[in-house]
């Protein structure tokens, strides 16, 4: 079977369901399909030039997103996705006829046998997915680009790790440090101003990797707190090869936290809300600051090291974001 390629220009949309990255989609028959023998319901999977046309048929004429059940059509057979159906005030956008509530079940079923490569194939993902599971995979694909880990504003920049490191340094003016130990002093003259979450980010480079050390002041239900935690610039699986510790102290008291860095795949907010880091109430932080305890002068020391956690030792990670 000859391969066919489809090229299209980049279209960006809210849902990012179809995103033609200017690359080519090759619908080839290189994957051996054993489904003809195994599955009684699917006779053959759609491959080759046919796959292209079917894929195009599944694109909503209004929003250009991939359509998912329920797929609608008008009396003349023009299709429409369910999101757009709500917005077109009962008029088919293609032929202006009155829309009913006709569902295009046939198209939905045909989509079942469509197989497509992951949209991140050009970033290295080798996998091919049935139409209905492609989206789910893409939201978890290990080859997908990372989002900017800068806390606070929702910076929408994406890219690979080296790109994001430069972006943090050049655009967000984040401090960069080489080494695996640190000793930071956080000073804030008027600690009462904790209403707006304030944060600081430092990037550490060690073990050939990059880590983000977040320090933040915010309001938790129990009042103003400070929190420090580490995130790994990479995927969760690799993050588990590392451990870190953070320590604050003063006046004969010391609080130490030891943990595994979270991946930057987990948003800053998610990690913060899971309390997965060193948390100190403001009163205690002021106590550690010494002096007249009106000014925050918190010394946080810490280190990062390589530690291989075995799959059994404490890797049960319940959902901390609830």
């Amino acid at each position: 079977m000859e391969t066919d390629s489809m090229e299209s220009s980049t279209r960006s949309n809210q849902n990012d369901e179809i995103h033609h990255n200017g690359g080519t989609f090759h619908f080839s028959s290189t994957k051996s399909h054993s489904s003809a023998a195994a599955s009684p319901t699917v006779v053959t999977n759609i491959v080759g030039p046919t796959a292209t046309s079917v894929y195009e048929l599944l694109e909503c004429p209004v929003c250009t997103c991939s359509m998912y059940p329920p797929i609608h059509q008008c009396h003349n057979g023009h299709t429409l996705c369910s999101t757009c159906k709500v917005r077109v005030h009962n008029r088919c956008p293609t032929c202006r006829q009155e829309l009913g509530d006709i569902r295009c079940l046939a198209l939905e079923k045909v989509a079942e046998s469509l197989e497509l490569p992951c949209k991140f194939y050009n970033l290295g993902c080798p996998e091919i997915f049935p139409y209905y599971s492609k989206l789910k995979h893409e939201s978890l694909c290990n080859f997908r680009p990372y989002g900017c880990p800068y806390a606070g504003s929702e910076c929408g920049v994406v890219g690979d790790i080296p790109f994001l490191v430069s972006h943090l340094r050049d655009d967000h003016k984040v401090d960069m440090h080489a080494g695996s130990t640190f000793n930071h002093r956080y000073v804030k003259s008027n600690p009462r101003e904790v209403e707006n979450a304030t944060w600081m980010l430092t990037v550490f480079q060690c073990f050939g990797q990059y880590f983000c050390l977040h320090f933040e002041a915010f309001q938790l239900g129990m009042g103003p707190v400070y929190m420090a935690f580490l995130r790994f610039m990479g995927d969760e699986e690799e993050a588990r090869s590392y451990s870190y510790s953070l320590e604050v102290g003063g006046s004969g008291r010391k609080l130490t936290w030891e943990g595994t860095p979270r991946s930057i795949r987990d948003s800053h907010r998610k990690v913060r809300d899971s309390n997965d880091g060193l948390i100190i109430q403001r009163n205690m932080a002021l106590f550690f600051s010494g002096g007249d305890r009106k000014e925050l002068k918190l010394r946080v020391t810490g280190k990062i090291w390589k530690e291989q956690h075995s799959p059994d030792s404490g890797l049960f990670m319940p959902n901390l974001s609830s």
Partner: protein
Amino acid sequence: MEPPINDLQIECQVNELLDFPCSIDHHTREVITDKEKPYNCPYCGSKCTVTGDIQCLLEHLRNDHHVEMHDGRCFSHRYVHHNPKHYHHATRMLTLLDCYGRQFCLHFEAFHLKKTPMYIAFMQFMGDEEEATSFSYTLEVNGNGRKMTWQGVPRSIRDSHKTVRDSQDGLIITRKLALFFSADNTNSKQLKLKISGRVWREH
């Protein structure tokens, strides 16, 4: 009178670690002078108004409050909370530790800090502040690849339990984090917090 503490149990696995035979006879009392002010019963949160010297309070705690006493500088307790729904009852546990010829109170308590459920553990010294500052203690809680350690100076029981708790002078964690430490492969949202620690003399 007292909020029910049936839901909060303590499962103890105490390490009785004595490095070397102690030369101090643990049963020897200090000479109590008339000038020495009696101590208040350190039993947490209750309206107990019993006062007395240390030995007297120890017997009172044992007999009237049914507090357990353990020998040794190291300890390891598992706090189990069977009915997390009954969180609104502030639940607390007190254990006594006997070492260096002195006694220490280990408090563990569930409470709310501005509507956020928290747990706190801290140590108090059964004696005066001056002697209390010659000791240090650590409390450690771990699980699921995370560990939190608190190192502090035991407060004298001259400070009320409430004073120490409200000053947050101890190991303090949100309930969310405590449940994370407790999590195992079952889906129960039950608190099973293992707290270990030790006491030592600084000078």
